[in-house]
């Protein structure tokens, strides 16, 4: 098969169809709407389920219901919609059913805007709902990778009976790139033995996240934590390195920010600066161990994100204060330009006279402005 020019959202949709997604439930929200629209045509064509729900709350619970029957199911949304789904994520995690969620992130907080953002990093990797759980979180940086990771998402969800997120920012959702789709998979003929299909010739199956006794619930939590630990230990950590071999300064970025950072690395290398890029592909489980190793190589880290600094905390935790971890971020749906990142790197590597970092870059509001604000 050959490469075709495809929009990110549409590519994710078709990849999920080919990965065997049998049901899609969603609610319109920019910048993911093309995904829903594509599914509205494609799923019925194949005799599969498409339903536009009345809200994201309903959509995630439809997903929960379909997941309980043992089929491959997904929903997609963007940041505010993801916030609304959190109770459902927690129930899904608490009852060990597989589901795939696509988040095409936009600027927040509140209604924010519809421009690309990475502001959902924390809400997805850390606080996807009440209680102790983490979804597996896959963060592609190109349309091709979005396709590949969508297929992987369904496989991982099923393998571990867990929630898997594919997170892209609006830029990857909206951009056109040449990419190749995988072949169409055949749908399985049966359902898993835990699924709700009607208790015909067997004991009844129950899907529930309710464990009223403290002993029972602690046991359930221990099992869930053991599963998460197993996922972390079981080769599910994914990342990519670019020119890290001899890097003095290591950029760390995911998704669109990583593309910007990669361009910056290319430019800076031409200037003779030894800069490399580390790109986490799984945001959970986070590639902490490799980052720890890289502190033996690079003596300065710079995390670039399209938010106020969310992944940077995971990087700092991984680095154990062995090297300084700096941050450069843009918010409000702004994609940083490679030049901005390059300038920050030159300052850190003392190639140009340094400005006061705190004042110019680290805080979105200048200290004196914040002070004025507080006096109001």
């Amino acid at each position, binding site marked *: 098969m050959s490469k075709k020019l495809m929009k990110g959202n549409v590519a994710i949709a078709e990849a999920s169809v080919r990965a065997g997604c*049998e*049901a899609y*439930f969603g609610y319109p929200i920019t910048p993911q709407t093309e995904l829903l629209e594509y599914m509205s045509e494609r799923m019925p064509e194949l005799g599969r*389920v498409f*339903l536009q*729900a*009345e*809200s994201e*709350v*309903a*959509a995630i*619970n*439809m*997903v*929960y*219901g*379909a*997941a*309980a*029957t043992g*089929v491959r*199911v997904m929903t997609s949304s963007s940041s505010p919609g993801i916030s609304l789904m959190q*109770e*459902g994520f927690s*129930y899904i995690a608490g*009852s060990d059913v597989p589901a795939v969620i696509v988040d095409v992130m936009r600027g927040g907080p509140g209604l924010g805007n519809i421009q690309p953002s990475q502001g959902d990093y924390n809400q997805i990797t850390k606080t996807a709902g009440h209680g102790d759980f983490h979804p597996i979180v896959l963060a592609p940086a190109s349309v091709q990778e979005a396709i590949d990771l969508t297929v992987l998402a369904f496989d991982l969800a099923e393998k571990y009976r867990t929630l898997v997120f594919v997170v892209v920012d609006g830029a990857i959702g909206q951009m056109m790139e040449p990419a190749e789709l995988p072949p169409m998979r055949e749908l399985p003929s049966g359902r898993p033995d835990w699924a*709700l*299909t*009607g*208790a*015909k*010739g067997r004991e*009844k*199956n*129950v*899907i*529930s*996240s*309710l464990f009223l006794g403290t002993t029972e619930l602690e046991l359930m939590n221990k099992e869930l934590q053991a599963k998460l630990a197993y996922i972390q230990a079981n080769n599910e950590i994914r990342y990519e390195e670019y020119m890290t071999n001899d890097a003095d300064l290591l950029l760390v970025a995911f998704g669109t920010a990583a593309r910007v950072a990669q361009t910056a690395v290319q430019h800076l290398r031409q200037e003779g600066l030894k800069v490399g890029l580390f790109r986490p592909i799984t945001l959970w489980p986070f590639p902490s161990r490799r980052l720890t190793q890289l502190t033996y190589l690079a003596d300065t880290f710079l995390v670039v994100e399209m938010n106020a600094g969310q992944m940077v905390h995971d990087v700092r935790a991984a680095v154990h204060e062995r090297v300084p971890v700096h941050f450069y971020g843009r918010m409000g749906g702004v994609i940083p330009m490679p030049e901005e990142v390059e300038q920050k790197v030159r300052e850190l590597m003392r190639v140009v006279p340094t400005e006061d970092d705190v004042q110019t870059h680290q805080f979105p509001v200048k200290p004196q402005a914040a002070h004025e604000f507080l006096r109001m």
Partner: protein
Amino acid sequence: MNPAVMTAPNETLVYARPQSLADCYTHYCPGCTHGTAHRLVAEVLDELGLRERTILVASVGCSVFAYNYFNVDACEAPHGRAPAMATGIKRVNPNNIVFTYQGDGDLASIGMGEVIHAAARGENITIIFLNNATYGMTGGQMAPTTLPGQKTSSSPQGRDVAMTGYPLHMAELLGSLPGTAYSVRRSLHDARHVIQAKKAIRTAFEVQMANKGFSVVELLSSCPTNWGMTPEQSLTWIKEQMVPVYPLGDFKV
């Protein structure tokens, strides 16, 4: 347990436990009509031969453990979301019989959006809706179905309609939607009404079997514990106080 074991020789068991009802104790308070409703649904599932095809979606409320009490495949939805979960199941498994079992806080308050839209879509599911005019599980707070003047733990002076509005008539509301194929209100306060309730539950499942669309049976139900009444007083209270506000009848058949 095989009921026959419990029968002495030469005796015929005429009132056995339905197969669809699990052989276990429930946690319901004495005199609570949740138990009555469970038995009616189980009898209907047995009589229609549906046990092995049925999937129950339990809700959050006193009936949260319904998945333990029915001998069918089951799941437990977030508060109010049972109709959405049932939709997901039914769309993927159209050959299963899918029903939710919901209280009035669950269905008429937090879950209003899900139930209205399931009905509006003509979702081919059945809803067993227990209206006991209060939030039983959380200790008897005011529900959207609480009667004007009724004292609850969050309306200690009695429900003041000027402040908190009026009771919601779900069977009428759902019956008004084109997607609804069957919407009726029955009561569980005496034997005659219990028999009528069972007939309605049977019809609701038959509607689903015939793929006719959304079916709902609202059942006026007791909560002696939170009403502060004996079981007997609470049945009288349904008859004398609830039925005048919530007229029994067929709103879509």
